[in-house]
């Protein structure tokens, strides 16, 4: 059941970046920080790629798939969550478009800030549902050989797309974010006030 710890850790990582984005955008909107579009782009790149490339496919293909076999009655819950993975992708595309508009036109900041809040709440609700409903169900319903397969998938570092261990690539991007985000959200340099 090592996958449970890995899933929760990945949820924390995604949430940390989403929360970092929320706070940074709020600070920009409040005039406490200048817009750093390189940093915003890096935050969005992480949110776009980490769940899509590494996290959701493992949930859909391994955890949810095994759970469907063992607990057919959980299908409506799993269908809903799997659909939210797709909805999340669409919402992210909208959010990224809002940022691009803001990057070109500072007047579009309020719309981007609203979009960030909505995305953060959507993500939080989805993740809580997985942790409160799916993981306890999986812990109770899955057999040792299910966990062996799921654990192996979640522990795997292979990523044929980028050609290097995906977890290492995302780890490096995360370190970059932590080192670049201004305090108190990260340990980067103090953000200059908006000019």
């Amino acid at each position, binding site marked *: *059941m*090592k996958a*449970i*710890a890995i899933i*929760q*850790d990945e949820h*924390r*990582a995604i*949430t*940390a*970046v989403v*929360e*970092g984005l929320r*706070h940074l955008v709020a600070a920009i909107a409040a005039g406490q920080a200048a817009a750093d579009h390189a940093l915003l782009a890096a935050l969005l790149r992480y949110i776009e790629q980490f769940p899509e490339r590494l996290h959701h496919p493992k949930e859909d293909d391994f955890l949810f798939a095994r759970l469907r076999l063992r607990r057919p009655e959980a299908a409506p819950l799993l269908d809903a969550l799997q659909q939210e993975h797709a909805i999340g992708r669409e919402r992210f595309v909208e959010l990224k478009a809002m940022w691009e508009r803001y990057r070109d036109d500072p007047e579009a900041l309020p719309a981007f800030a609203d979009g960030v809040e909505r995305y953060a709440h959507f993500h939080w609700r989805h993740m809580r549902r997985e942790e*409160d409903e799916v*993981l*306890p169900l999986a*812990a109770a319903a899955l057999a040792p050989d299910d966990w062996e397969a799921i654990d192996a998938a979640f522990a795997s570092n292979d990523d044929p797309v980028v050609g290097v261990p995906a977890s290492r690539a995302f*780890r490096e991007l*995360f*370190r970059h*974010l*932590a*080192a670049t*985000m201004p*305090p*108190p*959200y*990260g*340990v980067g340099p103090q953000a200059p006030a908006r000019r």
Partner: protein
Amino acid sequence: MAELLAVDGVTAGYGDGVVLDDVSLRLDEGDTLALLGRNGMGKTTLLVTLMGLTRLHRGRLSWRGADLAALPTHRRSRAGLGWVPQERHMFASLTVEEHLTAVARPGHWNVARVYGIFPRLAERRTNFGNQLSGGEQQMLAIGRALMVNPGLLLLDEPMEGLAPIIVQELMSVVRDLVADSGMAVIVVEQHAKLALSLTRQVIVLERGRVVHRGASEALLADPATLQRLVAVS
């Protein structure tokens, strides 16, 4: 794995007051333990007792088979206990680099290696302790504990008051430390799921007594029991 630390029937506290009541635990070299419980249940007192800063009323503490209770605090540190206190204890009059070199003991960990895991500290090497952000202070507190080249790292609420990105970054570093260096770790943390994901075994304290012990993985997979024991929000 050889036994690193043994706590046998320890009753301890401050002066005549008793906080820990008949606590026992075992930790092998390279093993990891989460110490959980609600506020005021004795978690920090157990770490402080290991460092020799409480009164030991009863019981035995042994470190690699020798009597730990006979050693004063500074010799416990030299013996291999690296303590990262909750308050971090930064010195306003010392630079980052001085914090690290002041406590250095021979071994794997040196200033360059600490800067390797915390590059931000290298950038801030000439800054004083009171010029650091909370995240930087916690990095320095962990780096300073590593400089004594400990066999056991005692982390007292290392994530308290830090932003989620910093918490995740520090967790990754601690996880790498455990995996790569074989260092044993005891972590006290209010965020129970965090502590459980970092460790192999768990002890839960309630009013100074052990009320649960087992595998961290099992408790992580049992949210009802976890909620009952530590009231996770």
